[in-house]
């Protein structure tokens, strides 16, 4: 594995039982990411994007294959170590309802830092910093239900970045946003990628998302069929 390689997935398979037949959601997938990548995983609904993202995010385990993230054989880790790996190294942005609804925007961002045991003042300062990075200065004390969908997703991005992960995973981050807000969210992430060097992997079939990508990986029926540098 070369120095700038961040992630190496080799021969990854995931099977689901549907009825009496086995169905391959991931069918011998090989996949790499380099540090600083901003990759969009595209493909029709059901092609296996979420499944691959869940494997990489250590939320699920492949039936076959190996997975190496930042030089670590993550499939060999125990469940508790994996949770810790997620906490320390990976940031997540989900499609919707990302936020803890009883916490304010800054508390939501600070939450992951708190899980890491960071002191209150420090984590709130960092939260405020990242909220202003995503353009939410002044809205720190709002609760999720007092924010628009686009603003909520920005909070989720701030939260994913606040813990300084090596990899940020986003599953359909723009799906619940109109194209204008989708575009601005994508531009925000791309901008952060370029300014802060964080690696992004985004699953989306939204053309707006693909347009913002540095690299587009296309999936079909559990296979990666093409990979284009945009």
């Amino acid at each position, binding site marked *: 594995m070369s120095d700038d390689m961040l992630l190496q997935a080799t021969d990854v398979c995931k099977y689901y039982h549907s009825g009496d037949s086995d169905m391959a959601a991931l069918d011998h997938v090989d996949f790499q990411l380099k540090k600083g990548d901003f990759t969009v995983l595209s493909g029709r609904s059901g092609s296996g994007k979420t499944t691959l993202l869940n494997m990489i995010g250590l*939320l699920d385990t492949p039936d076959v294959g190996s997975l190496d993230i930042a030089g670590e054989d993550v499939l060999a880790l125990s469940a508790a170590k994996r*949770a*810790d790996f997620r906490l320390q190294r990976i940031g997540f942005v989900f499609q919707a*309802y990302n936020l803890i609804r*009883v916490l304010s925007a800054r508390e939501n961002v600070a939450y*992951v830092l*708190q899980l890491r045991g960071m002191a209150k003042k420090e984590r709130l300062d960092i939260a405020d910093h990242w909220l202003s990075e995503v353009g939410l200065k002044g809205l720190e004390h709002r609760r999720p239900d007092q924010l628009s969908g686009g603003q909520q997703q920005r909070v989720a991005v701030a939260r994913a970045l606040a813990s300084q992960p090596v990899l940020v995973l986003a599953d359909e981050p723009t799906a619940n946003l109109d194209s204008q807000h989708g575009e601005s969210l994508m531009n925000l992430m791309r901008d952060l990628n370029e300014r802060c060097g964080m690696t992004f992997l985004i699953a989306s079939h939204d053309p707006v998302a693909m347009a913002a990508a540095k690299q587009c990986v296309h999936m079909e029926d559990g296979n990666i069929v093409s990979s284009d540098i945009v």
Partner: protein
Amino acid sequence: MILSLAWRNIARSWQRSLVTVAAVATGLSALIFLWGFNDGVHNTMMRNLQQVIVGSIQIHHTDFFKKPSLSRHMKQTPELMKALSKAQHSGQVKGLSCRLDSFALAAGDDVSEGLVLLGMDTKAEAQTTRIAEKVDQGRFLQADDGAVCVLGATAARNLGVSLGDDVIFLTQDRFGALAADKFKLIGIISSGEMGIDRGLAIVPLDVLQTMLEMQGRYTRVVLQIAPEHLESVTTSLRSSLNHKDYEVLRWYDMYPMMKQWVDLENAFYYIFLGVVLLIVAAGIMNTVLMSMLERVREFGVMMALGCSRRVLAGMVIVESMILGALGVLFGLFVGLTLVAWFHGVGIDLSAQMDTVARFYVDPIVYTEIDANHLWQTAGSVMAAAIVAAFVPIWRVAKLQPVEAIHHV
């Protein structure tokens, strides 16, 4: 963090939380009030039994209680005097009186009745029991009274005697010789208790001692003691009195029926408590489970972010505990307020009560609650709240982040 998250979740769905807290509080305050009523009736019963005539503790010559006989009497031996003065110096004895009693045949105009002839030291008795208050015609004995007697109302009626009449008592003295004396009826007792009203004649202690050739001798020493000191005083008396010569009996050693009755009724209350606890637990479980199911997705996200199942489970149990604690607090407040209020004003049940079958129960119930019953009840409601969290926690433990995140 767990505490603050749990509290905010409760506050967020405050209407649901309020209903739950109110349900817990209502259940607990109802239980406390019922205990208050129950304990009020029972404690009054037990207090009355002790205070009207029986006393808390009686000391007899060994076996006197089972086989009463004048030969089983006590004198003021140094051993007895020492034991009694030690008990009195402990400050736990409210009153102490010596009695002499025997069986006698009372003769009225045409009929005769078998009665207990009881010699009482009027002054000591006034500090020990409330028998004097039960006189409703004439008066009770006084110091320096001569050959006068007080009769139970039923006994007086059966004998056909009224105030001022002479009653002749026929009995045996200590040596087995026949003794008969004439006593003037000066008072009639209506206590509501059958044993007293139909079977008792009270005469001055010194008069009876002379009549029975029992000068300086007694059959019973009666002590009045607060319930909390009963056991310790009993133990201390038993240790200082030789059990070959003396028996030290608590009221419930002598009249076990009432204590058994109280224990039986309490057992019913415990069953009732169990049922209420089930309802409380189901209510809390419902609230916590509902609020948890609403947040499955959020839990999934939290887990994906690296929050452990332990922390989530901790949050769920703390939510339960907060709801339970609030309910218990309000329940204690309302329940104790009710008990305190009815302790003052009383609940008048005279319309519902048959005066004949009173068995030391007063027609007006003043609620009170035993500390044990109070803490047991509040504690078990709190425990029910914690137990109620186990179903939701079990659901949390099974939660898979991938599924939870995609939960709709």
